């Protein structure tokens, strides 16, 4: 048990250190999130009356897209500079490695988005219950998004221009998440945390974690056979 946890923390800390020293590139997802939100508001016309009912959907789209584009880089730097092979040679299981990468990615890419939700609510003039609903739906759906994204990212390691293919591979898996998170964010004000949508989201997240991480590990192994 002991080496498992220490290896996990080791990779997470390494990824955080690399990100913080890279001069803010890890915050690009957040910038994309803000740009997407303002662009949508401009496209819809900028009236709060028309924006407010659309806001949960637009905010969720912004979350999904800014996450999707981040997965292309998730494993490729480790695969390109050879550290992936070293990690495999060191005896660390690929599943453990993927779990660590996913945790680090959650901290670096998803947590900033969740923390930026109040700003999104401010931009769209949202009521408090909707904001809290968005917050909880994002929290509950995040394992599913991150694990499926990690799977697609692992499949496309070493591809040239895999960005569009990554979106194509991930979108079908993410559509149920999107449907339930948006309606969950809306129905939170009526039925609270025990809304049906949250229960479904938890189920989807559990399935995604159980399937996505081993599948991502298997996909990474195919590159090194």
């Amino acid at each position, binding site marked *: 048990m002991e080496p498992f946890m220490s290896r996990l923390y080791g990779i997470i800390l390494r990824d955080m250190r690399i990100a913080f020293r890279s001069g803010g590139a890890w915050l690009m997802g957040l910038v994309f999130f803000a740009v997407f939100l303002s662009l949508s508001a401009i496209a819809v016309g900028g009236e709060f009356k028309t924006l407010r009912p659309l806001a949960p959907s637009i905010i969720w789209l912004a979350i999904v897209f800014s996450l999707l584009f981040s997965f292309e880089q998730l494993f490729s730097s480790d695969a390109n500079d050879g550290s992936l092979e070293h990690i495999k040679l060191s005896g660390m299981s690929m599943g453990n490695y993927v779990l660590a990468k996913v945790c680090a990615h959650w901290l670096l890419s998803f947590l900033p988005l969740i923390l930026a939700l109040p700003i999104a609510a401010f931009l769209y003039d949202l009521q408090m219950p909707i904001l809290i609903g968005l917050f909880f739906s994002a929290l509950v759906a995040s394992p599913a998004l991150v694990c499926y994204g990690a799977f697609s990212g692992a499949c496309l390691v070493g*591809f040239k221009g895999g960005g569009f*293919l990554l979106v*194509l*591979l991930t979108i*079908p*898996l993410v559509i149920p998440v999107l449907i339930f998170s948006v309606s969950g964010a809306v129905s939170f004000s009526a039925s609270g945390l025990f809304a049906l949508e949250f229960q479904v989201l938890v189920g989807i997240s559990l*399935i995604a974690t159980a399937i996505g991480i081993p599948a991502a590990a*298997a996909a990474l192994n195919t590159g090194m*056979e």
Partner: protein
Amino acid sequence: MINFLANPMRFKKFANIVTPLFGLLAFFFISSGLYFGLFNSPEDQLQGHSVRIMYVHVPAVIIGMGAYAGMAIASLLAYIWRHPLSDELARALALPGAAFTALGLITGSLWGKTSWGTYWQWDGRMTSTLILLFLFIGYMAVWSSVDDKKRAARIAGLVAMVGSINLPIIKFSVDWWNTLHQTSSYSMPDAPGLPSSMALPLALMALGYTFFLGWVVLNTVLNSIADAQVQRKKPTVSTTKMEKL
């Protein structure tokens, strides 16, 4: 059975017998299904003649989902036992599966126009069928964009297996969202079910589609075996030339 057919030469002998049989059966079942469906079955009390779209629509969607399930199972077999033929089988299922799913979506939207008054509605069952089509396209995109064939096979197999968790979601989505699309007329409690004059062409068409799928898939696999043989022969020709020299 699986291990027996894993040998490409044995598979080729088997497929050479079965493939024309499947083609004949597909022709027979589809033509008789079309005859019963179009000329020899009653009109619906409310929908009139447009109910006949059902005989094309329902089997197409069922076979599309079945093709995906077959793709996932073949990928699983290939993943565990590393039978290359199983990979070829999964790959061959993708294109006809996508075609059947698209056919189901198109006929469904035509039928929806006449009976619901709209071509498209974002209801659970339609949405998940559309997702199924996207999954097929993604699977084929992986095959076509990886150069190393072995790696492409493994990754496409993983994509198919992970996507197969979408199939139960398709099945239960009607109960989850339940807006416009009717549930199956057979599984509803105290449903009258379909009269046998309508069930007969439906069953004939489903059988015919299944044999047609089998015919297309076996032909594709036979083609890829022949391809592999040609590829393998090329270097031996050059080596014999080298030996002569």
